[in-house]
């Protein structure tokens, strides 16, 4: 069986400017931040990002890498508004396809099921239809005759997700309370890259956890990366909670300053800089 392990930089070497990237997690939870940081180190730009938005959207927007965003929100959870996303929107930095959370999910499901669209009872009557003039509606062919939004499939060139454990073949396991939509992101994508806290032997995955925790199946996965702390500063329950102090720093520091101190080097440099910052303030 093929060994799909690679480094974050190998993942990024397979991505190109202009691609549509889906990013897993939700808000400031289990975001594949090490992969996103690697993306920031590259010159890849002009991206269409599809995300239940958190700091992944914030950093990519601040760094000017997004051409178009597909999202229902962007939040840091304990800090309700994502400040860098907000600033980018207010200066008109990218195009936005703002859709309802449910429309987003139905769009991923359509892509995963190789359907051009799925009907959903959401969006109608709201300004989601006004700000997305390309959205079409569809009428039920049955007696009810109800009208629905035909959410277009959100097909992705690549998906980036982060989970607790994975094996070398790409079977991914989540140990927290919520799978979010990470398996769907992988199924909706032509290629998918799974970062994880720890790569373990396949047999190890179900030694202490039930098989229902095996969220991501290897046939949907292109590459696996071991990145301990790879979701930092977002949460990755039960391995770690959100780094609230660091998130606050991120939210209140001007982007150029934050980026220069924490993101100029590689992932090891990032971890060292975060450690130093924590030591300085204690």
């Amino acid at each position: 069986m093929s060994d799909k392990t690679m480094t974050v930089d190998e993942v990024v070497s397979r991505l190109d400017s202009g691609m549509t990237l889906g990013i897993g997690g939700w808000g400031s939870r289990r975001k594949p931040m090490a992969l996103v940081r690697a993306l920031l180190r590259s010159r890849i730009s002009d991206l269409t990002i599809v995300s239940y938005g958190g700091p992944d959207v914030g950093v990519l927007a601040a760094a000017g890498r997004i051409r178009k965003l597909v999202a229902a929100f962007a939040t840091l959870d304990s800090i309700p508004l994502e400040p860098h996303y907000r600033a980018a929107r207010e200066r008109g930095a990218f195009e936005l396809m703002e859709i309802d959370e449910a429309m987003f999910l139905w769009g991923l499901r359509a892509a995963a099921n190789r359907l051009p669209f799925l009907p959903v009872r959401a969006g109608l009557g709201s300004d989601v239809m006004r700000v997305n003039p390309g959205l079409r509606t569809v009428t039920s062919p049955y007696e009810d005759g109800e009208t629905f939004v035909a959410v277009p499939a959100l097909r992705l060139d690549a998906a980036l997700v982060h989970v607790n454990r994975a094996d070398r073949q790409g079977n991914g396991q989540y140990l927290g309370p919520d799978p979010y939509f990470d398996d769907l992101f992988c199924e909706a994508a032509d290629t998918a890259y799974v970062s994880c806290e720890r790569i373990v032997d396949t047999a190890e995955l179900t030694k202490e956890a039930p098989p229902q925790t095996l969220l991501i199946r290897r046939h949907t996965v292109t590459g696996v990366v071991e990145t301990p702390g790879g979701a930092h500063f977002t949460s990755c329950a039960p391995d770690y909670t959100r780094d609230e102090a660091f998130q606050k720093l991120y939210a209140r520091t001007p982007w150029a300053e934050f980026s220069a101190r924490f993101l100029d080097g590689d992932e090891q440099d990032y971890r060292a800089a975060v450690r130093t910052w924590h030591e300085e303030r204690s």
Partner: protein
Amino acid sequence: MSEATRVAVPAPTRAEYCVIACAEAWRGAGEILASPMGLIPSLGARLARLTFAPDLLLTDGEALLVGPDGTVEGWLPYRQHLTLAAGGRRHVMMGASQIDRFGNQNISCVGDWSRPTRQLLGVRGATLNTLNHPTSYWIPKHSRRVFVEQVDMVCGVGYDHADGARYHHLARVVSDLGVFDFATPDHSMRPASLHPGVTPDQVREATGFDLAVGAEVPYTREPTETELRLIREVLDPAGTRSREVPDPPTVI
């Protein structure tokens, strides 16, 4: 207890009337999920669950369904939460950055959507909610900035935009001044009750559209002794509710 030893119970605070007003949104709701956004709606949902709406489902704010004492009784991750909402067995009480007379709600942005002056959260699940199950709103600070003539982006769908959608139902808007519903012929907002101490003038002054506040608007009902005890001793002993809605200064 003899009369001599009876300790006077302090009168209900404005925050406590708000908790009662929120709780009432779930009266008679049956076995559905109560989804409160914000502190006072959460206290209201839990109060309802402990008293007159014992069949309600509550979440821990993450992926679990829990009883009032925290006992886990189910699993509800985001993806199934969205399915539950689409299935209709939910009554959400959402926030609103702006709301208009027909109940259109905005949490997306202020100003022109294509280049907002203030980017807010985003549309989130507001359109799914309002087209699939009962929806109420909680506004902790009633003002002309929130109660506007027209919202900048329709997220939650109001009566004029819903056009009779089959499951659309806006139940109530609770603010720090009163309770408002849409039980008028054209489904425009109507004061259903004012919290004790609030005058009709105060409400008119704080609302950015014409609101027919007559002199005959009743007051929000009093909490029972049991309800007050539950709020004060069980649900919020630290008194955080008065930080969300402080008591108004006493007018002499």
